[in-house]
């Protein structure tokens, strides 16, 4: 098992294995997406208070979860880069950044569109929205810094440090709705004990969340493969392709 993992760390192996996984993951993603959309848009009943507008939740919440998850993945890669200088970790970190930024952007905009009918305003400067916005800036900072440094291995170390320093923002975002009185809804799914959301809505939500997870891996693999080709264009294994 460990040997397989170790082999995965080598670029040519990763490239090949990723190539084989991609078709499977694509199908799994499409299946989960279809199930989630069906459950969320058609099966689930309208909400008692919010009517039909709550259905935005099925993209907004998974997007927000992914925005946090991907940043944590990047921070872990950052630690790996600093301690072991593993090439694959560098590729995963920089490939994850645009995906994470996209999800953060999606979470912010869908949240805005949900907030307008619910709270009467597109934006409010409460703790969760503000810290999510800061997360977007952190992602953009990482992408910007990586672009600014020419030598990509040095650039990887720089963004690794930045990712690690910024990771304090993640618990702030997550707990912000508990620490501050906030307009944003409190935790309903990750509460210990029974979550206070009905199963007919929870199931599509979890399906969509899982679909987004699979999608992240899928998009990541595509990006990593492209990035690997670009970085290793002068090496033997690329020529042998």
């Amino acid at each position, binding site marked *: 098992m460990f040997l397989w993992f170790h082999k995965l760390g080598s670029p040519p192996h990763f490239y090949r294995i990723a190539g084989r996984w991609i078709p499977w993951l694509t199908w799994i993603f499409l299946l989960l997406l279809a199930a989630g959309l069906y459950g969320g848009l058609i099966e689930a009943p309208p909400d008692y208070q919010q009517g039909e507008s709550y259905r935005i939740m099925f993209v907004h919440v998974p997007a927000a979860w992914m925005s946090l998850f991907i940043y944590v993945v990047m921070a872990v890669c950052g630690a790996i880069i*600093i301690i072991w200088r593993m090439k694959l970790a560098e590729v995963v970190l920089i490939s994850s950044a645009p995906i994470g930024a996209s999800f953060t952007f999606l979470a912010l905009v869908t949240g805005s569109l949900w907030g307008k009918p619910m709270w009467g305003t597109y934006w409010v400067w409460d703790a969760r929205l*503000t810290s999510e916005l*800061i997360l977007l*800036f*952190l992602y*953009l*900072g990482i992408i*910007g*810094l990586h672009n*600014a*440094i020419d030598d990509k291995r*040095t650039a990887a*170390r*720089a963004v690794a*440090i*930045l990712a*690690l*320093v*910024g990771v304090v*923002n993640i618990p*702030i975002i997550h707990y912000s709705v508990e620490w501050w009185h906030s307009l944003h809804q409190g935790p309903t799914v990750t509460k210990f004990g029974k979550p206070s959301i009905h199963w007919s809505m929870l199931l599509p939500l979890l399906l969509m969340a899982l679909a987004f997870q699979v999608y992240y891996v899928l998009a990541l693999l595509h990006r990593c493969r492209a990035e690997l080709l670009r970085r290793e264009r002068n090496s033997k294994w690329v020529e042998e392709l």
Partner: protein
Amino acid sequence: MSHRLSLCQAFVFLLRRDLLLALRNRAEYAMPLLFFVLVITLFPLALGASPELLARIAPGIIWVAALLAAMLSLDSIFRSDFDDGSLEQILLSAHPVAVLVLAKVTAHWLVTGVPLLLAAPLLAEMLGMPGEAQPVLLLTILLGTPILSLIGAIGVALTVGLRKGGIILSLLVLPLYVPVLIFAASATENAAAGFDPSAQIYMLMAFLFLSTSLSPWATAAALRMSVS
């Protein structure tokens, strides 16, 4: 004769050197302070000098100006050392770089943060901030400006080798500064309205301890990367 310095002596040496350099370049270091005062005076000019409005937003104005002045002054932490090669010497020394970094950041704070502390009461008066809030304002500046120097040092260390480093520096450092801004301004506003600011003050203290213990390491790692 052995020239081996103890860690403490190295710290003091670097601190004194930076302070001396700052003293000799007084004009360069006066600029962030001047910027601070100028930015604050812009607000009454732009918003109309209505006393109630100014008094209400005074904490926010002062802190945004402090943030911008801190960012402006960050470049001076490592740039001149980078340019003349002393940064490499610091990295090559036998002492842990994180401690030496702490010395440089302390010098930076003494030169750029403390003047803000001295100028703030006058500016608070000019903006009409209620008297009860001023001690809290000074406390937030006392706690907050070292945090700005410490976190800013990480950003400078990451970008000191880049050509357009200054612009990227702002993009990197501002998101990290935002929590300090939020708590400091909120503490002062609470005090101005007569409420208890201690929760926010404790958060600032926590940030200060956190950044003092962790940021020198991050800065050292970033410097090693930048100089390589």
